[in-house]
């Protein structure tokens, strides 16, 4: 059923009894054209664009748990395109453009909110670095503004501008088109839109191995039996190494934890996204009123999906240094997600040395904003066996050939990206 004003009014008048399920719950078929492993944001958007852009509809998404149970439902929902390395700059802008039309495209309210992203600078040199970044963005046709301390103060008066501020605000880089989106809605919306185009979305189906013919991958072994496919595409975020090992691949990836935090609901306070450049802290307010924030990685390899306490203390300290009034709030929840940290901090969308196997990984802790662009480019790669021009730098062999995209300048240390 298509959602529209008329359907909302009709259902409202008749007790909301007519809503069908958002996507079917089919049994796996014996064979598909494409199997996408992983029903997170990237897997679901890939399936959708395979159907929409390339007419491939004999497609299945296999998810070991439930849709939205991975990082797509665990992140702090920030979307932006303020990157500056060649490759990243163009890719994240494509993704942000897709966000702009997303709710209409998939007929589902993803609650995309262009509330603006402020990156605070606390020193003249950091301010210069941000001005440089802003110039790179603008020369690529991407919106960016640089604000002085007084200009920031006008817009964000609740930051610590006092004499006592531990890290005084010097200025900020602002991308007004950046903002947030509703994480679950992104997963559900893509799932429903892919399903409406004939894609089978199969939950509770863990891929446990691959079927091979010669050196070709021709399907998967799963907890719901063997399923054959002409092409198998991996989009399993933090678990890429575990699955890739079953195909004999060793990757430039480590799995690390990132935690997120939510406070009790309060009246509207923060109407934008703020990142604290003196440390590592970012905050926004959800539509329900909770403040949503996060900080550093836990810093060591982990698949635990639960964080450790030192980071809790660290994040809260930073938050209070930036916005003193946070100390009066109760924190309701915190949790962690397992992320696929790549060795240069940038993603990998590529063919693999195994014919029939396609790879989408290395999103680190910036992969939510990439969901539309990643699916769009990955679908192109799978359908045509050649990279989409905008993602052509995200090759797997860039590490071997000395062409990493090191946005952060942190070298081959995933925990530092």
């Amino acid at each position, binding site marked *: 059923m298509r959602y529209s004003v008329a359907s909302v009014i009709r259902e409202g008048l008749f007790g909301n009894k007519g809503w069908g399920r958002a996507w079917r719950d089919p049994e796996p078929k014996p064979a598909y054209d494409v199997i996408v492993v992983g029903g997170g944001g990237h897997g679901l958007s890939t399936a959708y664009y395979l159907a929409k852009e390339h007419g491939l509809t004999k497609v299945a998404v296999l998810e070991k748990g439930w849709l939205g149970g991975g990082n797509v439902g665990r*992140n*702090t929902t*920030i979307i932006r395109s*303020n990157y500056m390395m060649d490759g990243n700059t163009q890719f994240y802008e494509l993704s942000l453009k897709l966000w702009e039309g997303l709710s209409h495209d998939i007929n589902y309210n993803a609650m995309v909110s262009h509330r603006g*992203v402020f*990156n*605070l600078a606390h020193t003249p040199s*950091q301010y210069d*670095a941000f001005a440089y*970044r802003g110039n790179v963005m603008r020369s690529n046709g991407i919106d960016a503004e640089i604000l002085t301390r007084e200009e920031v103060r006008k817009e964000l008066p609740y930051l610590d501008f006092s004499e006592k501020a531990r890290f005084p605000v010097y200025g900020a*880089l602002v991308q007004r088109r950046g903002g947030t989106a509703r994480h679950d809605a992104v997963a559900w919306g893509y799932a429903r839109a892919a399903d409406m185009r004939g894609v089978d979305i199969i939950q509770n189906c863990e891929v446990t191995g691959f079927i091979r013919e010669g050196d070709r991958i021709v399907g998967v072994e799963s907890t719901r039996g063997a399923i054959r496919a002409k092409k198998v595409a991996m989009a399993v975020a933090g*678990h890429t*190494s*575990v699955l890739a*090992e079953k195909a004999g691949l*060793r*990757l*430039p*990836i*480590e*799995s690390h934890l*990132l935690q997120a935090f939510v406070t009790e609901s309060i009246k509207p306070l923060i109407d934008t996204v703020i*990142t*604290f*450049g*003196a*440390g*590592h802290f*970012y905050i926004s307010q959800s539509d329900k009123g909770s403040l949503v924030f*996060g900080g550093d990685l836990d*810093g*060591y*390899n*982990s*698949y*635990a999906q639960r964080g*450790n306490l*030192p980071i809790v203390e660290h994040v809260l300290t930073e938050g209070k240094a930036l916005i003193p009034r946070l100390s009066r709030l109760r924190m309701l929840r915190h949790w962690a997600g397992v992320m696929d940290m790549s*060795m240069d901090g940038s993603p990998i969308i590529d063919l693999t040395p195994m014919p029939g196997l396609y790879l989408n990984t290395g999103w*680190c*802790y*910036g992969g*939510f904003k990439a969901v539309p662009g990643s699916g769009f480019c990955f679908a192109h790669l799978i359908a045509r066996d050649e990279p989409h021009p905008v993602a052509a730098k995200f090759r797997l062999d860039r*590490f*071997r050939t000395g062409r990493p995209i090191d946005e*952060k300048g*942190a070298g*081959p*240390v995933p*925990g*530092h990206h």
Partner: protein
Amino acid sequence: MLINCPYCGLRSLEEFTYGGDASLERPDLADEDMERWYTYVYLRDNPRGPHKEFWHHLYGCRQWLVATRDTLTHQVTSVVPARDVVKPADLPEVQSPAEARPKRVAGMKP
């Protein structure tokens, strides 16, 4: 998470910094084989289970240790002084406390 330092006893995670995968073997510095260096610098097993890794007891005895830790449960099953199990060439370079923290200039993620 607690780590049992062979010199200091059971201590909290906060006293330590992580030094990465301790199962890697650094090629000889004179080795000119790029494939071996690529493998050493970039490729990781990244296991979901027991993992051999370096920890520096930075705010304790300042010794480098090699711990075996389960990446799924965070349980640390063995901790030994690094000098007992690795060649000096494999040890990460010793950092001063100020350098031990990753430098975060941009501060705008995720």
